[in-house]
């Protein structure tokens, strides 16, 4: 049974990471494509149509993988976590069903209209349909995070008939934990989309391909990067303060705080030692900043891990390093975005190969940051599956070990194939560049001298 639990946890972690390689890009990129479509509908300037088609193609490749890897997530609650589903289903199932009804239908139906209506329908209908896709994807994030928010901070429930039952729907949908996570996740996801667009544009700017096309694209990515990378530290800070208040163990693990203390300093460099319940190394300490990070007040009290029973603590080192990686990358994105604005304002972007190379090689970092953030949220909640109500070990299905081995092996093989195909196609079409203007002249309503 322990192996089933362990493998089910690994399987869930692996499949959710795979899923979350595709989702964040979808969330941000769709908005950028929708803005391009809107610009095209308003101005009928064919450049925008080329931009929407080029970035839209990359978006579509990514989108389908997000959809299919998402179904795995829905199935797994039943297949591998049936005890959890029985106990929590009355409150956890409805956000999932609502997500399908309100969001998935919208995004899939309009994705079909947008993808196949490109050369058939008016620019206005194109713009409308891609905005509906954008709306669908972002609403979908809200509902799935509402479900996750309940696992983090159970509200609106009552214990009845040997299970958790819904008692107050309003409390469930206004759960502050969920809203903090939603805003933090979505805005961080925009960094993924923004850097994706900036990095591919940088690749072509470095090679002087279609310079005006890619400069314009870079500008779109940069605008989104500035918006999201600037907001994220504030949003992240507030949601961290709230998370630490609701889940002291997770909070303490983020900065590896062992002793409960006031006026806590912040150590820029720190190495936690989980075995001995101490930090093996602390350096470059800034007095009282730690307390501020936790409580918004420089003399606030922070609960230490030693005051939390050992069997209710998460894996401190995992949470600590994941948190550090996320925050460090967040600072990096902020710097890259603002320096990019500086270069752009000086009209010096295409003459700054070192900056462009930096952006190009940073393309994967936002993925790492956002997944590290979810690692803090999920690993930090352990050993609970629903905080304070149910432990992860209690939620697993009574299934045979061979079944889990079969499912995990086949999922890993298939996901790896999918990922290779996805990366191959994205690189191929990203390198290929946009369709030539001449071809667009025919259908795009722009006269060309030929």
């Amino acid at each position, binding site marked *: 049974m322990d192996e089933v639990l362990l493998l089910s946890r690994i399987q869930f972690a692996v499949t959710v990471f795979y899923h979350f390689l595709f989702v964040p890009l979808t969330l941000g990129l769709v908005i950028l494509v929708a803005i391009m479509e809107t610009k095209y509908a308003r101005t009928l300037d064919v450049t925008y149509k080329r931009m929407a088609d080029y970035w839209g193609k990359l978006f579509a490749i990514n989108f389908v993988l997000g959809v299919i890897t998402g179904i795995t997530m829905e199935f797994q609650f039943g*297949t591998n976590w*049936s005890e959890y*589903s029985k106990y929590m289903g009355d409150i956890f199932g409805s956000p999932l069903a609502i997500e399908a009804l309100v969001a998935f*239908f919208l995004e899939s139906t309009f994705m079909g209209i947008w993808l196949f209506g490109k050369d058939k329908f008016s620019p206005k209908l194109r713009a409308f349909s891609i905005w509906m896709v954008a709306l669908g994807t972002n609403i979908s994030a809200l509902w799935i995070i509402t479900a996750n928010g309940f696992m983090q901070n159970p509200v609106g429930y009552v214990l009845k008939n040997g299970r958790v039952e819904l008692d107050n729907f309003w409390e469930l949908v206004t759960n502050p934990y969920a809203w903090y996570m939603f805003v933090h996740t979505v805005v961080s996801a925009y960094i993924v989309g923004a850097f994706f667009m900036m990095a591919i544009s940088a690749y072509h700017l470095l090679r002087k391909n279609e310079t005006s096309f890619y400069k314009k694209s870079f500008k779109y990515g940069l605008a989104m990067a500035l918006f999201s990378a600037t907001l994220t530290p504030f949003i992240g800070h507030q949601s961290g303060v709230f998370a630490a208040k609701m889940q002291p163990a997770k909070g303490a693990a983020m900065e590896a705080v062992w002793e409960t203390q006031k006026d806590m300093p912040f150590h820029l460099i720190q190495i936690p030692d989980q075995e001995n319940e101490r930090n093996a190394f602390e350096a470059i300490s800034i007095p009282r900043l730690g307390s501020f990070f936790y409580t918004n007040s420089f003399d606030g009290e922070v609960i230490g891990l030693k005051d939390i029973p050992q069997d209710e603590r998460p894996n401190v080192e995992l949470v600590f390093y994941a948190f550090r990686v996320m925050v460090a990358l967040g600072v990096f994105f902020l710097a890259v975005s603002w320096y990019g604005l500086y270069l752009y304002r000086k009209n010096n972007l295409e003459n700054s190969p070192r900056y462009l190379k930096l952006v190009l090689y940073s393309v994967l970092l936002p993925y790492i940051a956002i997944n590290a953030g979810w690692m803090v949220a999920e690993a930090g909640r352990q050993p609970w599956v629903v905080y304070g109500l149910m432990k992860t070990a209690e939620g697993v299905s009574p299934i045979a070990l061979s079944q889990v081995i079969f499912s995990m092996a086949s*999922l890993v093989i298939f996901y790896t194939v999918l990922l290779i195909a996805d990366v191959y196609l994205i690189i191929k079409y990203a390198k290929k560049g946009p369709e030539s203007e001449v071809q667009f002249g025919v259908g795009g309503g722009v006269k060309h001298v030929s």
Partner: protein
Amino acid sequence: MSHDTLAIIWFGLWGLIWTVYFILDGYTLGTGMLFPFIAKNRQERNQLQEAVGPFWGGNEVWLITAGGATFAAFPSVYADMFSFLYTPLFLVLIALFIRAIGLEFMHKDDNLIWQAACKWGFFTGSFLIAFLFGVTFANLYRGLLIGANGYEGNLFSLLNGYGILGGLLFVSLFLLSGSLWIQLKTAGQTATRAYRFSRILAGVAPAMLSLFFMATVNRTPLLDNYSEQPVLWVVPVLTLAAMLLTAFFIFKKKIGYAFTAVCVTIFTKMAFGFVGMFPNMLPSRIDSAYSVTLFDAAGSKLNLTIMFIVAIVFVPIIIAYQSWSYTLFKEKIVKETAKGYQ
């Protein structure tokens, strides 16, 4: 409304969502299974891709909704069904991957091996989804090996004669639906070839359905409800009538009517099953004491009420924009202009 009434309504909605999924994805799965045999060149492949491309994603969401609605309205059915049927469901999942990727990535590369792999992936995925769901539902009619300690069967105990027959029935109905859909949506050689398949399937599908009905009488307790309420017999009679009408319209070359009739066939066939199962959702073959009924599994009254309101508001909206999308793409797809997934 009392809790029990709400639970019964949700049982009806649960059945309806599954049924809508099978009707809609039925033609996509059928198109997938016929794809390698009907599309002989790039343009024809484009035609078939475009015949299902704008719709298949929205159709598949009905499946996700069926899963979500099971989870929300009948949590313990969701938990038991998915963990009992662990291996077949993962096979369905992988089939869903292959189908989607095969269809959408087929022409994203010019490598012939890539294209062949996608084409046969589209075929295999579609076949497996149709077959496995047919097997699953047949086993629900027959009863699962649920005992005192939970599920006692495995993948192979599902692949009994009756289960396989249920799988083949789904495959033949969806093939028929797909062959008609191709004629409705495309013109030229693809439609001509599809019609030839329709004529064969117009014999195969009714034969499968008759066999399935006979086996249902002999092998399942599904007809107990029908003996108690003889008026219910109208449902399977309608299924047979709609099936025969489908064949009739195919020979009369009234393809639109034939497609409607095959949809009615699938609808009433599913209704026949759900009516027979009522009030069981996971019937036990070992002892009915172990069966999970809709009353055992129902969510709380508040949850069912809220979900009911959400469904009442959103399902009509969904039906409205999905129908609208069908009208947007009503023109027949011809070889010369078909683009498919580029």
